[in-house]
């Protein structure tokens, strides 16, 4: 399953590197992370990682396959 996470602020390459499995794409005042999420454990792990890095997730949605 593929997911997209919308995160506040443009995220530097340095921070984006903490999500090697996701593609980071800058949009105005926000960053879109998208990629394949293995399972639910991975999903919650990603959310925790965003939180660990002080990034606030504005929106999260499942992408059509």
């Amino acid at each position, binding site marked *: 399953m593929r997911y997209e996470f919308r*995160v*506040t*602020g*443009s*995220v*530097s390459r*340095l*921070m*984006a*590197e*903490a999500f*090697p499995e996701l593609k980071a794409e800058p949009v*105005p*005042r926000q*960053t879109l992370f998208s990629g394949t999420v293995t399972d639910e454990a991975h999903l919650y792990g990603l959310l*925790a*990682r965003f*939180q*660990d*890095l*002080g*990034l*606030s997730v504005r929106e999260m949605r499942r992408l059509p396959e």
Partner: protein
Amino acid sequence: MPPTGLPPSGDGRGTTLAWSGDPLLAAKFSVPAAPRHHVSRHRLLDRVGEGARGPLTLVTGPAGAGKTALAAAWARDGEPPGPVAWLTLDTHDGAPGVFWSYVVEALGRVLPRLRDGITMPARPGSVGTSLLTRLAAATEHLSGPVVLVLDGFEKVAGRRVPAGLEFLLGHCGPLLRLVVTSRRDPLLPLHRYRAEGRLTEVRGADLAFTPYETTALLRGHGLGPGDDVAGALTRRTGGWAAGLRLCALAMQRTGDPDGFARSFAGTEQAVSGYLIAEVLDALPPATAELLLRASVLDRLHPDLVDALTGRRDAEAVLAGLTRENAFVDPVPGTPWCRVHPLFTEVLRGQLRIRHPRLVPRLHARAARWLAGEGLVTEALEHAAQAGDWQYGASEAVHHLLAGALFTAPGGERVERAFSRMPPSVPGAEPALLAAACRLARHDRAGCRERLAVAGRHLRQGGTEPDPEVGLTHALLRLLCEPQADEHSGEHGADDGSGPAEEAARAVSDLMGRLPPERIRARPEIEALRLHGLARSHLGRGRLAEARRLCAEAAGACTTQESLPVQHMALGLLALAESAAGALTSAEDHALRSLLIAGQHDDGPDGRGGAAFVALAAVACERDNQEVAHRRLGQALACRDVHYDPLLAAEAAVLRSRLELARGRWETALSVLPGPGTGEAPWPARRLALARAAAALARGDHEAAVDAVHGIRADGPAPLVALARAHLCAGRTDRSLRLLARAEDSPGLGLPDLVGIHLLRARAALLAGDRATAQCLLGRALDAARPELLRRPFLDCGPWLRPLLDGAGRTDPAHTRAAWLTARGDAGRPGPAQPLSSRERDVLLCVQRMMSADEIAAELSLSVNTVKTHLRSVYRKLSVSRRREAVERGRELHIL
């Protein structure tokens, strides 16, 4: 450090937690020191103080919001209402056994007398009382308020610990005050606590810095910002404490604080990324390089960091960073420190970009340093991350970790790390470690396959392997049950020269060649050796030997790490006893086994299900179907019941018996696997006898005879089964001859003995000799009564009833038989003390699903009194939940 008393979930006897003076562990229990430029935030301190007048205060917020800082500041100088027990949680503390042992330790440090209340020696009657019930009871009689701070509760993932905490909150005395900090809302019924006014919350928005507090923070760093700067930074960071601290650091380093504030406020970058980059860019190159390399670590020790950098300045650099209140926090009382997780993640990413090939080399160096310091688990994790499998496997084997892999708490971490090891890694040690990992996942076939590979390597090596390697090989061979029955045949297995005995002897010999202190440090090896031998004996149906060895194995477990082996050994002991008809002691040992695993509170967690199988068997033998069903369900929820051939066979036999008791003959037969699927002799025989019983219940005595003839029928049980089939077929003489042989065979168990008496009684009845039949029935009753063994009587069929009734009129045998029909499980130990009438009223209300408030209204009592009654009901019934109390109450006919 004072010695501590309580094993996390043991039986309170003979075992102590070995805190072993580990300063890293001690740091978990101390209130973190104040950072240098701490801003005292009275509005929040007051809030927590107010919360601590009630049972639960919850501090939630994102990483770096200042949750720990607030709780620590309040514990240090916020005038808490009583002594503060502090517990900093880690990701490895999630297992309930570990978590609760830490809680008891933390509380015990401020309340030395609390431990006495909890370590009360477990009498047989109280053996079911869980640790949580005892902990709750111990907090009932506090002389003043006591605060327990659980810092970082989000690290304890899963439902089981929060469920335990909910129980504690529901049943502890009014003077225990809980303060929990967490990044996420814990899985507690917060809405209910809110509605009941029992919860005080400090949430992310409360933790956010106000512009006034921002000014104070910046002043503390020697900066003199104007109101507009403080306001702008507060707005931009959303009052995020870690962000503001980073701002202060960045501003200290630039010459132009106002310029920094302006450009920061002007960017659209994510706050944390921008600030971290600012701070890292401003570091001297040597410091940055050091942090980059050290980012592979979770915890930094100056010497370890030196080993990674090849320099000698780590101590000075880390001390400097700590002093500057940057993002390096010391672990109090130790030379270790931690880098703030925000930075660790970013630094790791940077390291991967800049020096991708350095990463495995750094992990390999860390592994060697850690192994040298005796931190084996962490060393192995780093070795795995380095892909340095051969080194890691060799270290694990030489540290005799194979046994600890599936027993000790750290074993799971090693197992996880090495599960990624490719099978192509050459050498005996990697194959041995892979074998141990497979066994830890109950994959016996995979374990045997890897052991064969290891064996080939060992033979090719030519030279004699190190004793550690040989020992690991022999121990694993013993535990994965060598299947050599084919060539050893029926005789070889019995003269002590079977493959299991041979492996066990090899383990003993090799143990003798190692220094005694190393063997003493790993008692699980001897315990596993005995356990493996016991399994092998049980597999061949030698119950007495198996029982003796299981008891020895349980007795050999003397440390915290070996408790899981004790759990396994007691479970197997209970299983062997239940098969031999020693039901009382089987039940006792099974409960002790469950208590050790902490499963009594939390349900199965992938550990052994032998104890549940034994409890199901006991209930089945005593004709307590409801309990047997429940226990069997619990057993089937344990993974090993599906993978362990012994347990799988026993569970199938029980399912078949329960189906039979419901009169479903077809199902009873279909739940049994077909014959000849390569089981060890004993499970094969148990399955065959179950097939015979199912066939006989259908009236098909020829099929029953065939089922028994299909196996190697030594021992009394198959003879009794054959005799039963022949008697049904009307071949009385043949049946009696078989019974005579059965009676003379060694290893006659109670169920067999009772069965023999009953079949003889039937034969006498058929011959018209009612007096002899009566006399034989009396003997069967007397033999079965001490254990309340009812099943042989129920299997008898309709002829028994008139004989039993007839007994009543003529002789005192009626009372001899009364227990047989007395429902309600009179034989199981009743409540340690009878319930008072008020307690019984409360329990009746609980049965009607009423809440504490409703019960209070119904019985015109105060809510606190109701809770007191409930607690003593739980204690007397040895349960920890409402549902269990009702079930137990029904079992005991209190309800």
